[in-house]
């Protein structure tokens, strides 16, 4: 079988960007949470807020560090595997990505050190200010990246001359039609991620009875937040979907698994899309509901995938099922948030062991939902890389061979497997050691500002098993 450099490049990009994305998604949510905790401590001087802030700052440091390491690779991917695209879109893509880097550097240089190491060394107000600035900075970073991505989905403000995009209107290109929806959807996703992780860890600490006072506060606060955010995300997601219907109807058709343009379109709960036969097998659906959701009328017309010839269709099963996973997890999140509200009577949210265990498990769901959502939006626009203007096939590096692409794909998987293992393993140790007096710490380690991980002092392996030193 001939190795296809295009397919392998797409797999490689999907792999490295998925791996990378989970870190910033978490840091954006967590940075805002830290700002809130530091603000609460500043106002109330309740030490419980400070204990929470100290612990979550350590987690933030590790996750931020992992994000930086995996991010270095991203800044070279566009050139190595998508050189035609990089060259064509550089006038827009270059400034967007560079501004993201500039923002991140400014943030790291000016405020991150103060947030991580400044507690007790700079005035409390200065520390709070740094914490807020880090949170704001994560939004600005996300702004640039999502502006670039949204432009690729709904490209405007440019003209294509001699295979190169030239900017005709910067603000139109940056604030392109899908950008406001994607940005809001993504920020809420980050908050949900932060919220469910904090809720899950707090629930675990309550289960084992560690720092009950502080963790009750954290859990209660998170559940109020999730009660607002989880339904809000469903609403924003709906608006985002309507925007997609307007600009990328084929993507919506694939999300709905709707092959032929039709009215009274059912909402499919289950189906096995068969792209070769251009139909679904084993459909189970609710009559007319897709029409109602997308057009707010049962007789509304929903576009069909077959409006496009087969070679211009996205991989339907992937879009269809990724979308279902994302939505199902979204509804699960709403249900858990509502259950939390119900259990508040009599303070049972802090004691109901089943609920606390459920929250522990829930902490991974936002990551899965975010990745599923990105699979929907990224594979759903296939075969286009810049929608309607440049296909994946036109964008890939011409000199790339299947063997080269396979070599690096395997290589990146191997490298990330090691890094991800080490990072996750270390993070679980930080959590296991967290929120307690006299947890395992490396004694006398020199503080090394600038290095995010030096904000934690948890040893990487068991100190007690090694008698020397």
């Amino acid at each position, binding site marked *: 079988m001939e190795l296809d450099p295009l397919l392998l490049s797409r797999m490689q990009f999907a792999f490295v960007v998925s791996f990378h994305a989970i870190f910033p998604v978490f840091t954006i949510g967590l940075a805002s949470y830290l700002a809130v905790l530091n603000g609460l401590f500043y106002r109330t001087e309740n030490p419980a807020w400070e204990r929470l802030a100290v612990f979550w700052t350590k987690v933030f440091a590790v996750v931020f560090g992992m994000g930086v390491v995996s991010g270095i690779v991203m800044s070279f991917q566009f*050139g190595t595997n998508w050189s035609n695209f990089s060259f064509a879109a550089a006038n827009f893509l270059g400034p967007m990505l560079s501004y*993201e880097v500039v923002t991140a550097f400014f943030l790291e240089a000016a405020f991150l050190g103060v947030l991580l190491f400044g507690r007790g060394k700079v005035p409390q107000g200065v520390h709070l200010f740094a914490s807020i600035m880090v949170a704001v900075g994560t939004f600005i970073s996300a702004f640039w990246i999502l502006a670039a991505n949204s432009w690729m989905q709904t490209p405007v403000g440019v003209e294509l001359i001699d295979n190169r995009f030239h900017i005709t209107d910067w603000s139109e290109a940056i604030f392109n039609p899908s950008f406001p929806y994607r940005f809001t959807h993504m920020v809420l996703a980050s908050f949900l991620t932060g919220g469910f992780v904090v809720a899950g860890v707090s629930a675990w600490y309550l289960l084992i009875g560690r720092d009950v006072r502080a963790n009750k506060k954290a859990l209660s606060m998170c559940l109020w937040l999730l009660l607002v955010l989880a339904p809000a995300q469903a609403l924003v997601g709906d608006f985002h979907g309507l925007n997609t219907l307007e600009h990328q109807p084929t993507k919506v058709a694939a999300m709905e698994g709707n092959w032929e343009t039709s009215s009274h379109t059912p909402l499919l709960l289950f189906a096995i899309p068969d792209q070769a036969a251009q139909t679904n097998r084993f459909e189970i659906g609710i009559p007319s509901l897709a029409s109602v959701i997308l057009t707010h009328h049962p007789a509304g017309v929903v576009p069909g995938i077959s409006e496009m010839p087969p070679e211009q269709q996205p991989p339907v099963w992937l879009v269809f099922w990724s979308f279902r996973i994302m939505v199902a997890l979204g509804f699960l999140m709403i249900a858990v948030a509502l259950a939390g509200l119900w259990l508040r009577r009599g303070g049972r949210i802090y004691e109901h062991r089943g609920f606390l265990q459920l929250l522990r498990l829930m902490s991974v769901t936002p990551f899965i939902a975010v990745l599923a959502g990105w699979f929907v939006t990224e594979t759903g626009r296939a075969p286009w890389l810049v929608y309607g203007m440049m296909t994946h096939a036109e964008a890939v590096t011409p*000199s*790339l061979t299947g063997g080269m692409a396979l070599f690096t794909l395997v290589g990146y998987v191997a490298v990330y497997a090691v890094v991800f293992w080490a990072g996750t393993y270390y993070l679980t140790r930080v959590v296991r050691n967290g929120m307690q007096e006299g947890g395992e710490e490396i004694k006398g380690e020199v503080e090394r500002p600038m*290095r995010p991980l030096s904000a934690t002092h*948890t040893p990487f392996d068991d100190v007690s098993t090694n008698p020397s030193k």
Partner: protein
Amino acid sequence: MGGIDLALIWAVIIGFGVIMYVLMDGFDLGLGILYPFAPDEDARDVMMNSVAPVWDGNETWLVLGGAGLLGAFPLVYSVFLPALYIGVFLMLAGLIFRGVAFEFRFKSRKNRHWWNRAFCWGSAVAAFAQGAVVGAYIQGFAVEGFVYVGGALDWLTPFTVLTGLGLMAGYALLGATWLIMKSEGYIQAWAYRITLPLLVLVLAVFLIISLWTPFVNPDVWERWFGHIGVIWIFPALALGCAVVVYRSVRQRREGLPFVATLGLYIFTYLGLVISKWPVIVPPNHTIWDASSSPESQLFLLIGVLFVIPIVLTYTAWTYWVFRGKVKVGEGYH
């Protein structure tokens, strides 16, 4: 915008970024290369501690350079990266491994030897790949129109292997002179001992590369043996710096060997830039051919001119805070 040559400004910025990266990440990569030869584990602790506060700041120049190239000179980005595809992967993998090693070696006890290996191999591979990039730049690339059309391993020739090994030796020399400045006692004595052999090695490699280059690329020959005699000042100054390294090591000076080594590389780098100027994608494309649109270059320039002074200030501040000697046992009990 009449009168202001944005491509020229960007060439200066990118050129500045490249030499900042080479000098600053150079000495911490160099310490990684020297790692297996260190006298003992305490010396390794000191070596790593001496760069721990600054290494990731050093690497920010690489990321800024990568993103800046895409924004300002997309042709460089879209020819170099495909042409050096395998090398870029090896460099990134090396940098990731050593980055992670930096973080976790300090926090490990029984797994420490694994992180030592990751640090050493990561540094060595990254340094070799960067040296090969320099060699490939001197060689030039097979480009048709604005697209790289060569093969996966065109960059890997005897010449680029030599430049790769040469940069490894060069980084090792930087690492050794850095260590002279930052250590004391038997560790410093070891650093003094290895500096002069490394200097000889580096000069030998530079000499071979200089003699070889005109055969690899005739334009360079024309540039050096044509009518512009004044450019010979750069190799002369580089050689002067090498003499200063030699004498200052003999006199057991502590800071001067490092500073003179920096000078040696700055003048060598300027000589290399002069050999090629204004070609940025050899053999044929100049900085003006490789540029993005003037509006994009201007848009990006505003942000970069804002952030570079901040990064420089912060970098200087960090180096100031962590000035002075790193002692054995400092940090661990």
